[in-house]
């Protein structure tokens, strides 16, 4: 590299083409991926996949994963890793179920308690990582098993021997807070649109899509807030700095440990939110809830441009990464392919994304 010359603009710098500028954005890979997947399915899949009900169909699993993936992405940008996200979904699902069914708490108490509980567990694993100085990979791998095991034991304790806790739906059905965390939003609007003939209806006149599932709204809102925090708040700068180089960051006055522990708590709270939504949706909770979700969430974050080494990535990228995921997992049912290709696809996508990210990082840092 050369020093720029004092005074006039550097004559050795060529104007950067738009493509070269775009490729430096971390979320570019994920956006390109979405376009590729859409092209693939518009050729191979049944046309109904891209109807309104088809879109809602794949956005629902995408949202449930995406809420986790955005938490995981922020944590990865902050330079840490959480393998216990999936187990955390089961564990906070159990806690929420016990609050609602066993203790008969109203949602207005059960939901905040679940978040506090999840945050405390996140703070525990975060503090262990920070204080022990061990890689977060190992500490949270331990938590993956601990929390999954505790969920099983706890379920048996709460139900007297079963690994499924039923009766959540009955317990929360008439709670005023329930519509915020379950079911479909804007049913009135969709009924009206159906009357006007703007959305497809069944033969009896009810709309095929009764509303937007609440998880999609949560997903979009969380992606927007996370992006705002990362790019437009001092805390966002601290997250990038903590992940980029913790010594440099703390020498510059960034409270690195606080940032990291908060990110662990945030990830755990994202898991709790997914647990609350899915438990209320299913009406019950079981020990396999969230199984392997940690890997899927990390894949979505990596596809979204997060570097495994931290310090780089975006929440919008994780948003699109999750949509790719949802499109593929649901989209295959609209095609003639065997659904089990899904896993092959997931692994392949991860590999391509990691190689792509590595190349991008070299471009950004000017490494040769």
């Amino acid at each position: 590299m050369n020093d720029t010359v004092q005074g006039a603009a550097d004559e050795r710098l060529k104007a950067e083409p738009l493509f070269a500028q775009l490729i430096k954005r971390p979320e570019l890979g994920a956006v390109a991926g979405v376009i590729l997947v859409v092209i693939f399915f518009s050729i191979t899949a049944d046309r109904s996949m891209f109807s309104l009900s088809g879109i809602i169909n794949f956005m629902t699993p995408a949202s449930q994963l995406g809420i986790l993936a955005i938490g995981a992405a922020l944590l990865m940008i902050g330079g840490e890793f959480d393998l216990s996200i999936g187990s955390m979904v089961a564990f906070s699902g159990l806690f929420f179920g016990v609050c609602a069914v066993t203790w008969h708490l109203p949602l207005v108490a059960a939901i905040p308690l679940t978040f506090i509980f999840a945050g405390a567990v996140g703070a525990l694993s975060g503090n262990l990582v920070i204080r022990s100085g061990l890689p977060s990979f190992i500490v949270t791998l331990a938590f993956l098993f601990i929390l999954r095991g505790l969920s099983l034991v706890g379920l048996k304790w709460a139900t007297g021997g079963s690994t499924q806790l039923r009766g959540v739906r009955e317990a929360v059905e008439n709670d005023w807070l329930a519509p915020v965390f379950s079911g479909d939003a804007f049913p009135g609007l969709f009924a009206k649109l159906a009357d006007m003939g703007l959305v497809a209806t069944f033969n009896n006149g009810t709309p095929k899509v009764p509303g937007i599932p609440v998880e999609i709204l949560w997903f979009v809102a969380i992606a927007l807030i996370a992006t705002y925090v990362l790019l437009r708040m001092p805390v966002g700068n601290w997250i990038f700095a903590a992940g980029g180089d913790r010594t440099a960051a703390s020498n510059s006055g960034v409270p690195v440990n606080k940032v990291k522990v908060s990110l662990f708590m945030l990830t755990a709270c994202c898991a709790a939110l997914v647990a609350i939504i899915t438990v209320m949706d299913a009406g019950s909770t079981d020990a396999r809830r969230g199984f392997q979700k940690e890997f899927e969430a990390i894949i979505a974050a990596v596809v979204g441009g997060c570097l495994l080494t931290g310090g780089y990535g975006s929440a919008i990228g994780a948003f699109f990464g999750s949509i790719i995921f949802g499109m593929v997992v649901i989209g295959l049912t609209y095609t003639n392919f065997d659904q089990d290709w899904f896993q092959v696809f997931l692994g392949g996508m991860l590999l391509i994304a990691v190689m792509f990210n590595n190349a991008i990082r070299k471009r950004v840092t000017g490494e040769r």
Partner: protein
Amino acid sequence: MTQDTKFHHGDATQNDSPIVEMKNIEKHFGNIIALAGVSFDVRPGECHCLLGDNGAGKSTFIKTMSGVHRPTKGEILFEGKPLNFATPRDAMEAGIATVFQDLAMIPLMSVTRNFFMGREPTTGRGLMKRFDVAKANEVTIEAMRQMGINLRGPDQAVGTLSGGERQTVAIARAVYFGAKVLILDEPTSALGVRQTSNVLATIDRVRKQGIGVVFISHNVRHALAVGDRFTVLNRGKTLGTAKRGEITPEELQDLMAGGQEMAALEGSLDGTI
């Protein structure tokens, strides 16, 4: 080596009282005596060079000055008052900024984000309180321009800058945040010829703003190019301070090496070191 260089020297401010004055500083680590009575001071608008070979105690001394270590014995006066820094943060807030060799920069982040890391300007209130990116970009571009570097854009990653440019970002950042004393730890040691002269020019600019610069180096040429005063550290002791023009490069070199061996060596190398 000529004594006169293209740089202006801060002799006009020689009469000012020192910003930081360190008297007979001693620092022991267990049974190791790293500093055995070091006296050093820096005045506004001067560049005071601290020279010494590897292991002379330069790093320990800088760390004592910047609040990382507490001296075992001795006195530190800041603007005439005795002072004890508990943490580097205290020293920073008092106006002693240190640019270490590793620079505390993050290559993946943009120049602006590095510039304001940990001290982001905000706008708005309450929930709307946010990182004032527009202002931050503006300040960064302007601060870098004053140091003679035209950035491609404020979002340029620090990783794409050369070593000299990174050094300049670190210096510009310290100056912007109100440093009164700027400690530069071997700023030119890893740089090429052009980049070195750019950094030396930056030091000159900083000095003209009335900031006291402590320039640590083991390169006599670089020191003589910008220095107003020279202090040589050898085996944990200062061997006195010389003003510009009172000492030749050869004498400085000999002092750093502790005398004889170097003189003998230099003969065989024909004075090229």
